[in-house]
């Protein structure tokens, strides 16, 4: 179990207009994800969620079970392999070819930023999965580029990674670009 009061307090202290790296363990990562989405939803953020590990269908079911309003969510799904399906289950899901399609992800995030006028946040879950599918240097450049886009458009951000599982150098490269690092 995570210390929810502490976690949400830290988020409220630094998320407004800021970019936060959340480091957690494998056993807590889903709980952190759900609590973060729940909290962001309560704060009236429109959320753009990059899901690299869980298929969108599964994620939507989990949100519904946890009473999370899915109306103000857009999921960029890189892992359900439904990119080529003509029948898409919901308007708020964007299918990305795979976790290596960093250009496609950047483009889709950019489009979402442009389209959504309300207070918004980009939530990336997780850095580690992206690291499995991409070269560290390419991933660092991708994160730098996405974060620059977010800062230019006043978009808040949440990046999740597994602590102790990431290479020290790539972790440092990404952490130094964020406004705050939180360990849960």
């Amino acid at each position, binding site marked *: 179990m995570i210390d929810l009061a502490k976690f949400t307090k830290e988020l409220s202290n630094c998320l407004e207009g800021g970019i936060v790296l959340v480091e957690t363990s494998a056993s807590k990562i889903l709980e952190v994800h759900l609590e973060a989405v729940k909290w962001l939803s309560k704060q009236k953020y429109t959320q753009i969620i990059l899901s690299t590990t869980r298929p969108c269908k599964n994620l939507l079911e989990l949100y519904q079970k946890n009473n999370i309003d899915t109306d103000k969510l857009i999921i960029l799904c890189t892992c359900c392999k439904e990119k080529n399906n003509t029948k898409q289950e919901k308007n708020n899901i964007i299918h990305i070819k795979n976790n290596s399609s960093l250009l496609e992800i950047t483009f889709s995030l950019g489009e979402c930023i442009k389209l959504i006028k309300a207070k918004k946040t980009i939530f990336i879950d997780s850095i580690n999965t992206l690291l499995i599918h991409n070269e560290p*240097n390419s991933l*660092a*450049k991708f994160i*730098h*580029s996405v974060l*620059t*886009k977010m*800062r*230019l458009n006043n978009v808040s951000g949440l990046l999740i990674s597994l602590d102790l599982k990431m290479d*020290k*150098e790539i*972790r*440092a*490269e990404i*952490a*130094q*670009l964020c*406004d*705050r*690092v939180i360990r849960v």
Partner: protein
Amino acid sequence: MRKLESSLNTVLKDKNVKSIMLELNTESYFETNIKTIKILQKKGFGGVVYVSIQRPFKNISSTLKKQRISIKNMLFIDVASAVSNEAREKYKECVHISPKLDVDELIKAIYASAEKIKGKKFIFIDSLTTFALYKPISETLRFTEFLMQLVKGEKNTVLILNVAKDLSQKKFIQNVIVHADKIIEVKT
């Protein structure tokens, strides 16, 4: 802050020290960047050429204003927006460069910006390792060597190079360290 301030005070007493490398904690990287600027401005280094590799100008300038740091005597070279291919809005304090990040073009922009600022000033490179994501090591080293040579010939200019502590063991950073006049490990 006091530790960083006292370290900078000690180092800057030596007039031969022109290039300083700061090794920063990743957890408080940008916060320390801001502290460094505050300390140096307090020490009379009113002018700043801020080479912004990590963050776009718009974000930095608003953060500095929130921190009550005047940007009147500062010029920013917005590398972050350039390498991310973002639109380049015009501001009088901001110098834009092309997205290909040509070292010679960047050097010219730094040199021209430094020329425009009168009095005591410093050139601030916010992250050498972020720069190295986009350029080969040889070009990164050429860039730092040029900057070190530039400040050596200038009475009123100091160079501040920032690097994350966890990345300072990288071989190319070690090469830069060898040529820098002083290294300060910032403890926060």
